[in-house]
């Protein structure tokens, strides 16, 4: 009951400030526009907007980030449906039935179904997040330094899960993040480390310029390298709204997709694409209706889009309650919390800042309602968005990156950090080193070290503290399970690779 009254309080804050509602609407549209541009992702959109949210009130800034995140994932369905190109990896499953619908002249219905499903998935996950997050946070209030250390180690092991093709490359990216996290004053004793006499490095390397570099500048460089924009002129024909029959037949799929997505999102290291594909496979196992899957079945679109937006809400549960970002999007969101002085973790739900948390949850719910309204009404306009050429996008992205990294602290050193990490990220993504582990390493490394040393100080160097507390043992078990899963997946991949390598070239699939 307390949770619902807190959530109502969050809605009260939102609806008593019209500028907050306007900011969420603008953020949803901006997120959808970026998501609709093939190849540009919700994560990149968030990284670009992140420094500017710092210039806003915390509630406004974080509401904007939520809107961009939800809108970006939903917008990714547009090029998947219109062009057979997933705007974001989250929408890779959407094109399987979305594009066939376009070819049959049902693009309007497909887009409408995608937006409806995104909104349903987002709303279900938002409600689950609002109910479960405070409960988990209350439980996590009992955690102390040893538990948080093991939890951070668990977070670091999931680097393997987000590593893409090569485990080694994923771990190397994570190690780079750990090294970067060491730079500056050490968190316990105040020892200067790896600064080499440079005063600019005393405070360490900030997370935000690194995020902007590896997601923004890197993307711009990849676009410059490819320099091939979209040339196809998609058309939206047929009805704009999904039929009542299709809605009725997809209702079960929508609910299942939303629940699958929420559950998958709550597990660190999974991500929107996994949630969408799992939901799609689940939908395929059931009676398919009059149109087979893969040939333009609206249920395929519903399954994928409900799940990928539900993952967003689910993934915020470990981020808000434990400070463990499961993937790149929530890592950027965590950066947003940090720049507003909010320390993710169970303490976030107690004290004066708890009302802000519920305002953030309420803004995510409102953002999903706006996806439904704005996405459905503006579907026809997206035809123009997907055709914006690289020569327009690249200068805009670069300028936002440079201005954004400067705006945080008005320091030119942050601009240099952004450029350096942008170049590093470019080399990484073009050689299948995923960049997300770098960000996770940079966030979780200092968290692991701080709690490790705190626990060691309390126990005067007694290592058994990490293996004698019940919650720590649960996390160690999760670590072992994750490693076994990763090892088995890698072995399966090695078996499959020879067959695949004969017909598929190396591909850019940076994560």
């Amino acid at each position, binding site marked *: 009951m307390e949770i619902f009254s807190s959530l109502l309080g969050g809605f009260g804050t939102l609806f008593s400030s019209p500028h907050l509602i306007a900011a969420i609407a603008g953020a949803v549209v901006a997120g959808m526009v970026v998501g609709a541009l093939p190849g540009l992702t919700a994560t990149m959109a968030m990284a670009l907007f992140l420094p500017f949210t710092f210039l806003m009130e915390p509630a406004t800034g974080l509401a904007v980030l939520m809107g961009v995140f939800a809108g970006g994932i939903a917008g990714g369905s547009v090029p998947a449906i219109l062009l057979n190109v997933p705007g974001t990896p989250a929408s890779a499953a959407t*094109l399987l039935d979305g594009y066939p619908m376009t070819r049959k002249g049902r693009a309007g219905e497909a887009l409408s179904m995608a937006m409806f499903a995104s909104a349903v998935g987002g709303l279900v996950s938002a409600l689950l997040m609002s109910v479960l997050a405070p409960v988990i946070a209350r439980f996590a209030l009992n955690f102390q330094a040893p538990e948080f250390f093991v939890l951070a180690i668990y977070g670091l092991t999931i680097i393997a899960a987000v590593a893409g093709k090569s485990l080694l490359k994923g771990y190397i990216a994570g190690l780079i993040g750990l090294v970067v996290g060491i730079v500056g004053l050490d968190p316990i004793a105040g020892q200067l480390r790896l600064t080499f006499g440079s005063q600019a490095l005393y405070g360490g390397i900030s997370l935000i310029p690194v995020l902007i570099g590896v997601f923004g500048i890197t993307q711009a460089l990849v676009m410059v390298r490819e320099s091939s924009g979209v040339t196809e002129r998609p058309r939206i024909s047929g009805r704009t709204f999904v039929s009542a029959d299709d809605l009725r037949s997809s209702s079960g799929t929508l609910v299942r997709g939303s629940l699958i997505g929420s559950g998958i999102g709550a597990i660190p290291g999974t991500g929107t694409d996994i949630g969408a594909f799992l939901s799609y496979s689940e939908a395929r196992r059931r009676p398919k209706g009059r149109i087979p899957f893969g040939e333009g079945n609206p249920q395929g679109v519903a399954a994928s889009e409900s799940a990928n937006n539900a993952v967003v809400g689910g993934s915020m549960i470990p981020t808000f309650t434990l400070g463990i970002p499961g993937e790149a999007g929530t890592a950027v969101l965590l950066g947003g919390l940090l720049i507003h002085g909010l320390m993710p973790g169970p303490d976030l739900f107690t004290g004066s800042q708890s009302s802000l948390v519920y305002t953030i949850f309420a803004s995510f719910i409102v953002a999903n309602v706006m996806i439904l309204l704005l996405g459905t009404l503006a579907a026809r306009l997206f035809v123009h968005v997907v055709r914006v050429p690289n020569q327009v996008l690249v200068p805009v992205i670069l300028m936002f990156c440079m201005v954004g990294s400067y705006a945080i602290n008005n320091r030119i050193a942050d601009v240099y950090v952004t450029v350096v990490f942008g170049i590093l990220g470019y080399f990484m993504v073009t050689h299948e080193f995923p960049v997300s582990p770098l960000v996770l390493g940079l966030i979780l490394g200092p968290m692991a070290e701080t709690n490790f040393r705190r626990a060691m100080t309390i126990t005067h160097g007694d290592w058994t503290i990490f293996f004698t507390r019940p919650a720590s043992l649960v996390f160690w078990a999760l670590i072992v399970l994750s490693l076994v899963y990763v090892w088995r997946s890698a072995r399966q991949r090695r078996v499959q690779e020879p067959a695949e390598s004969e017909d598929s070239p190396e591909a850019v699939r940076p994560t």
Partner: protein
Amino acid sequence: MAGDSGRGTPGRPAAAVRVGAADGHTGGPRTVPLGMAVLLLGAAVAIAVDVRGYRDGAGGEPGPAAIPILVALLCAVAAIALVFQTLRSTALPGQSAPSVLPVRVIATVAALTAAGLLLQQIGFFVTFTGLAFAAGLLAGARRWWTSLGGAVVITWVVMIFFGRLFAVPLPAAPIDVFLGG
């Protein structure tokens, strides 16, 4: 993962856009992985040198050097593993070396670096108009004057938007002040 990159084309999903379709070749498929191994070894050496000056823990607990030493060891091991993996990997017959640094990318990096260096000397408007103009051309703009016009407009809008609306103190030269920044 949401942190994806790669702008695709119709019928060729972003996730399947092949690297190395651009012009100019500077380096082969092994250059960057080996370079990454060198970077890791360099980090390991730098940490090993730096930790010699750190204090010890006060009451028998690990001091500020403990985690950096562990990370340095992991870096060294990972670097060696990467070298082995890279040298063992063989390119498929007929596969050309992916282009690591097309001229356009080098020029974009140069433009970014120049912008970073010049920002405080010549102010926001001139620096970023130059950056946006160069980036537009490098990203494939066919007519230089449209790229220049676009760069001027975008820079001015960004300057007014962030300078006025968000009160970001952007580095200003006389022309910035003249244009309302």
